[in-house]
């Protein structure tokens, strides 16, 4: 009889702890679900540079956890002036306006300059060579139309929870945005 009582007590106790455990599990899961569902959209987030804030300081090339940065140059062709003397392509006071290495701003020679029609030249990027240093971006912003800019390339980005470049970014130009609209691209303004 006593033994039976003891068993019953144990059974009741086990049932109660199990109930508490399940309640706790449901509470934790429900809390997390509520937190996730609080905003309408809660898909995956990716890193993005706001080109308007970017000052092309060069940290993107050096602070990415990847040896070859996930940030690379993007060219908005519709904004480009197709200049003969492109300040994104040529160093200040170049010796001659040709593609010789000593005239180029790009340390890896990633920008190709091709003649289109007098006096216009087209500048295209060899993405494999670009290291995301932003030297050309600085040049283009200073004296050109600002058609060259840096952006996170999502085939390379590791989507770190704490982006090492974002930490080092002096202009706080990095943001996390929903993955369904990952690129903030420069487009030609209404003046055109």
């Amino acid at each position, binding site marked *: 009889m006593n033994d039976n009582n003891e068993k019953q007590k144990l059974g009741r106790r086990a049932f109660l702890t199990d109930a508490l455990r399940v309640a706790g*599990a449901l509470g934790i899961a429900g809390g*997390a679900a509520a937190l996730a569902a*609080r905003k309408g959209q*809660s898909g995956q987030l*990716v890193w993005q540079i706001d080109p308007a804030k970017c000052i092309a300081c060069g940290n993107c090339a050096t602070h990415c956890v990847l040896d070859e940065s996930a940030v690379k140059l*993007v060219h908005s062709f519709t904004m480009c002036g197709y200049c003969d003397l492109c300040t994104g392509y040529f160093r200040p006071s170049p010796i001659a306006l040709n593609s010789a290495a000593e005239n180029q701003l790009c340390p890896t020679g990633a920008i190709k300059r091709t003649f289109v029609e007098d006096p216009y030249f087209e500048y295209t990027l060899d993405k494999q060579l670009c290291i995301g240093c932003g030297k050309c971006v600085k040049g283009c912003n200073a004296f050109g139309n600002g058609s060259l800019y840096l952006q996170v390339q999502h085939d390379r980005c590791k989507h770190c929870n704490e982006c090492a470049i974002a930490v080092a970014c002096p202009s706080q130009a990095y943001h996390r945005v929903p993955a369904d609209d990952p690129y903030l*691209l420069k487009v030609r303004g*209404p003046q055109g």
Partner: protein
Amino acid sequence: MRFPTRNIRRFSISSCLLAVLLLAVSTAMATERFPPPDFTDHKVPATIVPAAPGEWFQYLDLAVLVLALAAASYLAIARRSRRGLFVLAIASLAWLGFWRGGCICPVGLIQNVTLALFEPAYALPWTAAAIFVLPILFTLFFGRTFCAAVCPLGAAQELVALRPVRVPVWLDHTLGLLAYVYLGAGVTFAATGTAFVICRYDPFVGFFRMGASANMLVLGACFLVGGIFVGRPYCRYLCPYGAILGIVSRWSKWQVKIPPERCVQCRLCEDACPYGAIREPTAALLPVDRSRGRRRLAALLLLCPVLIAAGFWLGRQLEAPLAMLHPTVRLADRISLEQNGRVEGTVDASDAFRNTGRSAEDLYREASTISSRFRWAGGWFGAWVGLVIGAKLIHLSIRRRRTDYQPDRVACVSCGRCFWYCPGEQARQGWIQNIEPVMKGS
């Protein structure tokens, strides 16, 4: 956080305004210095950007995590297979670590969840919420099987624990507090939007990605080399998620058990455990010791609120140095130094700020709001540290009756190394016939 839709709206409003302005003043925009040419027979190329990772990758990650957790729990609790857990740990290290770059990681997600709690504008992805919660739920039922063979950080250390030495008990307990302090720090910095320190100082992710700053690679190498002699140093003394799982594991329904039936007190499991997680049976106490213990417990219970209050007060004093870790506060400090002429020249950050055309007063206001947040955050962090120390002291002075050698519910990471060392398990496997002689011999 940015709101794309709002931004687009703002963009369209501002572009309308711009168009009106241009019509009225008819001056060219400053940025378009050279109007793009109208080519007759040249097609202007389109800007092409690589696609973002597909949504399906998240579902795959989630499925792999659930499968690995289920497999680890089955292998640790039902199958009692150290070999299975070891193979699963290698698989997790390869898949979640090296292939996925270590970034579906509940350890770091502590901060995302915290940020979502404190920052209404931050949207927590639901997969992140699921990845954070799943290991906790599994731990509530099966103990720390996530640590055993799913977490790639744990797996990396599990593989290198070759010559573990026994850490002195007092040192083990003291260092063990660090994990809770680190958890508090991670939560504090995430809640104030300062940084995700747990991710920033993740020692192994650099190896997973084959790239990190030299400092972090050296730190990771130190943890791995140290891990040869001190089993799982990161898991035991730093991992903030391990701290959470340890607390949850205390109330888990099932837990790794060493002897399948009864303990023969051979102490082989104690030698086998590289993580110092086996607790020995307790001796009966004399009544005089008991009353002394009771008095000490009462004193410690009174001390705990004092520790919490002292921690709170100390933490509040840390407002200024803690706030300086926030980028906005640091920027405001730099701008004010430059404006008062106390430093020469400018830095990239102050140049960038001036480019935005925002007034310094506006920045100072924002910085002082953030700073005042740190007064409370620092206080709560200090109180947490006080609570952790107080709770540890109380926990150490409560005696539990144990008749057998048992794994500690909090510290055991369910690695399963002890199974094969147990004569009872060997008898169960049929490797030895009778364990009575072992009993006599001990």
